[in-house]
């Protein structure tokens, strides 16, 4: 067991992957001497050299496009997109090439590229630095989308993502980078939770609350608060957006009869919609209330001074739980 901040756990995971496999290379803006704006790659260029930790020109299409080419040559590139709002210049490469090359070649081409990016808000940033674009990528066939919520998962999931033969979007909960947690670095591969498996973090009987990335801590806090009023919430960390582990969620909902999904992204066309659609189908007869969604609003992410009102808070989670229990 080692105690690490979530961001440092990613650093440790990257280091472990680079030690293990010389074909793992990192690419991104300011990831070298600076160590990235969140210092996630801190020290890696010093230790692995400029050929494996590449400070790239300021062009996201370039980062993902050249990473795709390196993967075609046999490398395993890990791209860093500096902030969630800056992934869009790379969307053409991600959607039309990276995601489709395997299918286009009927499995002959493999492009194991990982795209890391900070996601979510809550750190008082200026525009474009606080968005949660997971739904856009989850809708694109050929991509996998995952997000850790704890230091332990951050350490292991980044390594699992690098090991994946498919392209993976790895979303890092921005405002949790500094949150410390225990990381069990000594697990044998078999002991690590599979990358795309959801996990029940707290058992409960009255309702199931599903969260992922930055909202997991919120869901746990809400569950603690609800417990004081005698309401037992079961908290599930989804961990993977694509694929989505509906089995784990459905099993929980069959017991609790109620579901609340909490995300930072706008609810409209978000992950909560997909989960609600599947759960109402799988658990139609065990659902005692409509699935409730809590998330961002369908407006551009607001200015820092009001983001606390945009982001789901305990109040909004508990209101949704109340709505579910009231039905």
């Amino acid at each position, binding site marked *: 067991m080692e105690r690490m901040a979530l961001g440092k756990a990613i650093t440790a995971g990257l280091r472990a992957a680079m030690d293990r496999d010389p074909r793992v290379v990192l690419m991104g803006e*300011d990831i070298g001497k600076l160590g990235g704006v969140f210092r996630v790659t801190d020290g890696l260029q010093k230790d692995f050299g400029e050929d494996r930790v590449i400070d790239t*020109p300021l062009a996201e299409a370039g980062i993902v496009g050249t990473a795709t080419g390196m993967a075609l040559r046999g490398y395993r590139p890990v791209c860093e997109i500096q902030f969630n709002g800056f992934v869009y210049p790379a969307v053409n490469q991600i959607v039309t090439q990276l995601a489709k090359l395997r299918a286009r070649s009927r499995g002959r081409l493999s492009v194991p590229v990982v795209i890391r990016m900070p996601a979510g808000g809550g750190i008082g940033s200026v525009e474009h630095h606080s968005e949660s674009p997971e739904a856009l990528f989850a809708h694109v066939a050929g991509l996998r989308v995952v997000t850790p919520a704890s230091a332990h998962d951050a350490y292991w999931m980044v390594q699992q993502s690098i090991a994946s033969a498919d392209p993976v979007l790895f979303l890092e909960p921005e405002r949790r980078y500094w949150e410390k947690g225990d990381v069990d670095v000594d697990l044998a591969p078999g002991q690590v939770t599979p990358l795309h498996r959801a996990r029940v973090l707290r058992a409960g009987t009255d309702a199931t609350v599903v969260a992922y990335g930055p909202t997991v801590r919120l869901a746990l806090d809400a569950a603690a608060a609800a417990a004081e009023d005698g309401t037992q919430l079961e908290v599930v960390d989804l961990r993977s957006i694509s694929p989505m582990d509906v089995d784990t969620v459905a099993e929980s909902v069959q017991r609790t009869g109620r579901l609340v999904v909490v995300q930072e992204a706008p609810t409209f066309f978000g992950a909560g919609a997909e989960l609600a659609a599947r759960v109402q189908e799988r658990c139609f007869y065990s659902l005692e209330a409509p699935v409730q969604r809590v998330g961002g609003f369908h407006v551009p992410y607001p200015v820092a001074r009001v983001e606390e009102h945009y982001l789901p808070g305990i109040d909004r989670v508990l209101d949704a739980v109340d709505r579910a229990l009231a039905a």
Partner: protein
Amino acid sequence: MSDAAAGPARTEPMVQLLDPSGVRRHHPEHDVDLAPDELRDVLRDLVLLRRLDAEAEALQRQGELGLWAGSRGQEGAQVGAARATRPHDQVFPTYRDHGAVLGRGIDPLHVLSLYRGTDHGGWDPAAHRVHPYTLVIAAQLLPAVGYGMGIQRDGAVGTGDPARDTAVIAYLGDGASSQGETAEALSWAAVFNAPVVFFCQNNQWAISEPVERQTRVPIHRRAEGAGMPGVLVDGNDVLACLAVVRSALDRARAGGGPTFVEAYTYRMGAHTTSDDPTRYRSAADVDAWRDKDPIDRFRAHLASEGLLDEAFETALAAEADAFAERLRAGVRALPEPDPAAMFDHAYAEPHTQVVEERDEFLAAWARHDEESAAITGGAR
């Protein structure tokens, strides 16, 4: 392995009207002839811009701003370019071009409101013909070209009527030169002969990356590949920047098409207040540029011209202090945004889902206010 090639050492001569010691030089194509008062006004602009930077940095340290991106070292480039524009020209600045904004008579508190986190946009773009700061690198350039195509379609190019002919100036950095959209904007402007001046401040750095990481050749040579003139100007020489940008804007207004200007300068401060330059550049690197300071240089020039007397200096210092005081007080007095306002401008016309979300938000907010009022006895 063979990797990153040698960077773009600046071989070509730059347009320069003041040498580093402030001695006036003359240039065959580019020159200016400013009256003494105009010259003093230029100094005033430079001094106030630098003061804005100092105050904003302090305010950020005191927690009054969330972030600050400073323009220290680039005042010559920004003031020169701003003074070259006419009121009806359209400006597309980046997050660092405070000189471009002040030069258009915009209240700097609008700029600070963005970095305080109370406003994304700030000033009224139409009133000042200055587009909001664009934070996505290079994303302002294609809209700037499109705006220029609109000007062409309005018949406001090449009429010879100074009150009518209009141009666009679009700012970008050295790092921005790597974005594909930048290349599209340049080539597009050339193909349509749009009245756009691209003003690239090469301050040698894109956060931690030196310009060599962005390009193999001097940035102004990008212009050749796009099919427009590229001019290299000393970005720490306010007169040279004024002269070069003015003639480029004149050319654009006259229907001569786009120009790309590279202002060779240096980012003296950190990228932003969240940056730590000691990780990637040496003090020596920075010191080498201190001697080229654009304000010292210009002041030396005015002094040698005998345009600086104590009265002026005292008045300017007083004005700067008042300016600073107004900033300090003004920032703290900036109105806190109304949370409900986030729903107001996502769409011009009502959007069903947004309306529903707004109503739910307001209801929940009111409810929780009552609750907490009940608990705290009103003190929330």
